[in-house]
Structures are given as C-alpha cells and as structure tokens.
C-alpha cells in the first residue's frame, strides 16, 4: 500500500494526468454549479447572437462562436460536466454489475461459472458501440438512458477480471482458513476476497471512464446522444462538422477537450496499474 503510493508519486506522467483529471473534475463541478445558480460564465452557453456567428477566436469569444453565435468556450466548459458525469456514473453501473457477476462466477466455479462466462462471451460478441447505439435508439436518447446503457453493455471486461482474481483468491490459504472457521459464503466473498481484489478493480474502473466518455461523445456526434441545445463535446463537433472548412475552431477545441480528458484518464489508470502491480516488480 505505502509502496504503491510511493511508486505512484514517482511516476511524473501519472501525477500530471491525475492533476488533469482533478482539474477537469473541478471545472465540471464548478460550471455545473454556476449554471444551476443562473450565473453562466464567461457567457450563457445557450445564448444565441446571430450578429456574431461563426467568428474565429478573439478577445470576446475566446474560442470563437458557432453557427448560431453561441460562445464555444462556454459550451465546452458546460459540456465537461456531461462528459464526466456520463464517464463516472456509467463506470459505477458497469462496476456494480461486473464485480457481482464476476465474483459469483469465480467463487462458485463449476457449472455456475461456465453458465455465466458463456453468457458474458455471448455479450462480448456484439460490437459494443453498435449495441449501445441500438439500445439508445430503442429507449430514446437522454443523459440518464445513455449512462445506463453504457453501463449495461460495458461490464463484461470487469466481470472477467474479477472472476479470474476470484479463481485465484478462492484457493488462497486465508480463504481456506475462513471456511475452516465456519464463515458463510457471502461474508467470505465480500469481506475476505473482494478487498484483496480491490487494486485491479480500481485500475479497470479508472480505465473504464475514458471508454464511457468516448462512447458518449460518439453517440452525441451521431445525434443519438445528449440532445441539443444541451452542449456536449460530441454534439458541438457534430454541429460544427458542416462548417469544417470555414470554422476550424468548432472542431478543433472540442476534439482537443475529448482527447485531453480521455488521455488523462488513460494515463492515470496506467500509472495506477504500474503502482499496484505486484507481479512485475522491477526494483
């Protein structure tokens, strides 16, 4: 634990990435609060101004304006909240399902394991993004639906990981000892096994966030995601693609935002994995 913390601190890239994640989180929360309080800053993200449409970045609109004269910078800040919410909550949903399913399969083994894992295999056969697209098309696009759908289709990796961890943990001496002590099954799963699988679960969780962010951006870009006028990074790009030759700022900045967000989470997750990795100790 302490060693993992020390290793994480020594990883400069990981620290920068974590800082970036923190910054994004602060921005998202701050602008959500400002928006709710009705004091949008620097401008109202939804206010149109047709006299100032499609303007390149200048001193008034720092990142330019779109075809309705809305301020791109304000819309980006506002979109951060959607992206991060979708990212975190969807991962939470998928973790909940994945950990439960994987734990049951790994702990009970035998036919329970076979049945569950074949089901997981079947789900993994579908291309994830099209599964999400179909599901959203069926239930209708809203932030809530998107979160649930992304969570519902992305738990398979976690389930497989947790199952593998549990298959190993099940044979460990302290689980044997807990059984010899007369402890009941659920208690063994949640008290003795789950905490020992926490590190890899945390890593997949962090690596799952950018997947969810990218999925949401993709959905919004295709028009199946969060609906206008609510700004998200995906639909800003979608709106801007018509003007791609005249207004590069409409594509570039939201694209950069997505890139930075996804990259920060990936790098954080990667650094985290290296920090908790006990198998490949290189000291």
């Amino acid at each position, binding site marked *: 634990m302490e060693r993992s913390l020390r290793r994480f601190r020594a990883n400069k890239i990981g620290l920068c990435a974590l800082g970036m994640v923190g910054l994004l989180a602060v921005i998202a929360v701050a602008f959500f609060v400002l928006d709710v309080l009705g004091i949008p800053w620097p401008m109202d993200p939804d206010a149109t101004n047709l006299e100032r449409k499609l303007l390149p970045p200048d001193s008034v609109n720092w990142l330019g304006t779109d075809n309705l004269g809305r301020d791109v910078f304000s819309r980006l800040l506002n979109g951060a909240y959607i992206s991060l919410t979708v990212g975190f909550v969807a991962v939470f949903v998928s973790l909940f399902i994945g950990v439960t399913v994987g734990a049951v399969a790994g702990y009970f083994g035998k036919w329970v394991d076979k049945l569950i894992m074949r089901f997981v295999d079947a789900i993994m056969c579908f291309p994830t993004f099209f599964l999400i697209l179909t599901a959203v098309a069926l239930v209708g696009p809203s932030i809530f639906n998107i979160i649930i759908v992304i969570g519902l289709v992305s738990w398979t990796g976690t389930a497989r990981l947790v199952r593998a961890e549990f298959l190993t943990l099940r044979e460990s*001496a*302290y689980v*044997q000892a807990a*059984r*010899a*002590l*007369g402890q*009941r099954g659920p208690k063994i799963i949640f008290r003795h096994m789950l*905490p*020992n699988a926490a590190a890899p679960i945390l890593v997949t969780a962090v690596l799952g966030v950018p997947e969810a962010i990218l999925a949401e951006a993709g959905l919004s870009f295709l028009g199946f995601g969060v609906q206008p006028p609510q700004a998200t990074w995906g639909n800003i790009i979608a709106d801007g693609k018509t003007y791609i030759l005249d207004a590069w700022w409409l594509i570039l900045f939201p694209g950069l935002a997505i890139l930075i967000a996804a990259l920060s989470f990936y790098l954080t997750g990667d650094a985290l994995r290296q920090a908790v990795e006990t198998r490949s100790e290189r000291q």
Partner: protein
Amino acid sequence: MSQPILQVRNLCIDFVLEDRTIEAVKDASFELAAGETLAIVGESGSGKSVTALALTRLLPVPPAVIKGGEILFDGESVMTMDAARLRKLRGGKIAYIFQEPSTSLNPVYTVRSQIGEAIRLHRRDVTDVDAEIVRWLDAVGIVDPAARMHDYPHQLSGGMQQRVMIAMALACQPDVLVADEPTTALDVTIQAQILELLRELKQRLRMSILLITHNLGIVGDIADRVAVMYAGQIVELSPARALLQRPLHPYTQALMNSVPQLGHELERLQAIPGNVPNLGQFPSGCRFHPRCPKAQSDCSQKAPELVEVEPGRWVRCPYWK
C-alpha cells in the same frame, strides 16, 4: 476411557479427475479421546491432510468424493449435517491451524479484526471482544498483546503469525484443534517454541489435538498416540512412546531409520529404497510391498488388514514379527 469426541470409521476418499480416479484415503479409522493428542504421520501425498480436511467436510466436492465411511463428532454424524450445523462445527467445535501462517491470515485486516471475526462468529455471548482477543494473544505468548492486535499480518514474524493463528483457533474454544503441519514453514527454533506452546495449551485447556505432520521427530514431544499413513492407508496405529521405541510396521521402521538421531554414533542414514507410489497407481496387495525389506511372495496378492497385534497397537502387516 470415556466416549471419544471424534470417531472416524472406514473413511474412503476419492478424487475424481477427468481421466482417472485417485484413491486419496482408503479405509482410515481412528478415534480421538477428549484431551488426547493424536499425530498423523506420513509423507507428502499419503492422505493425511485430506483426512484432516474431511473431518469438517472442507474438501471441495467435486473433485473430492467421500466414498464411504463415517465421521462422528460427539456421536453426531458429520456426513449428514446441514450447512448451518457444519458452519458451527467448523471453527466452533473443530478448529484448524494451517501450514503457512503468512498466507492463512488475510493481508488486508488487522489481527484484532480477524480474531474478532472468529469470536463474533462462534461466541455470541462475549461482550468485550477486545478483552477476549488480548486474553488469547497473551495465552499464546505474544508480548504486549493490546498493541500487537492492531498490527497487520505483514508486520509480524512467521512465528508470531502462527501464534496469532493459534490464538484465533483457540478463541472459539473448540473441542478439537486440528494442526495441519503447523511448524513446517517455520525455523527450527520457532518450531520448538510453537510445539512447546501447543503442549502447554493442551495441558492447560484439556483440548484434543489432531496433529498432522511429516516429521516423526516432533511426534514424541507432544503426541499420545500416532497413526502412520502410507499411500492413503493407516499402516500403524499405536501409543506414541511404544511406537518410537519399537516400531512394528516395516514402513514405520524404515521411516525411523531415515531420521537422524542424536546420541547415536555416525551411522549412515538409511533411505527407503524406491519412491512413493504415484497417486492412483498403487501396487496391488500391500501398497508398501515393492519397497519393503520384509516382503514375502504373497504380499503382492493379498491386501493386509489393520490388525490389533498387541493391546492398543494396530499394524497393517501380517509379517510384522
């Protein structure tokens, strides 16, 4: 002698694998009286640990199958117990300590939390759990138990960890303590300390101990009776002192000759010729006959029975004289 607390009769355990079936334990019978210490001695794969785990049905089924026999705890059949009674039996009546103390403790919890869990499971009446933890840690010889109980397992030495395991087992106040090679993973000096501790606790608590070991050397220190296992069978069952002074079965004799003894002039140690038979490929007739110096022509045909040849001494060999 009063009614034995634990009776095992004709226990047969198989491991059913995909391509073959392995006879891990065949026809094992023994009894454990209250306050008695029985040692089960045998090489790796002789079935001693399997027997110990089977006592509370801890063996994973499948692959293990208890094919026959009877296990009675306090007169009640373990084979027919439901899950709830089994959980009460495990830890509460029959407690285990295992070979590797360093892996038998959960690395993410403190000593206090783990012993506390055991106490809350089996002794609902205890109100001051912490005091009870301190009492047992003290009983197993841990210095400054009130401070040590907040330690994590990795902060303790191997000997300390094993003491914690023993404290955890004893805290549930079991009738039988099953010690499955409790000293194998420890240094020789620590081994002696742990054995001394077990012997002292046994006298103080009047508890039955089933000691599983491959080391004949520690048997004399602590055991009242000894069961020697070879290839899944008990080949000799005898009071410890008598067995060590005058082993009757050729395997026990060979085993004793292969252990160095203090005080004896430099004799060459005698290895037992041949190898332990592979599991599931036991020779016909007596399972020891290919390696036995006293083997006769009919040993490969007829499987010998465990016979009481002297009062309290059972031997599975017709040619023990």
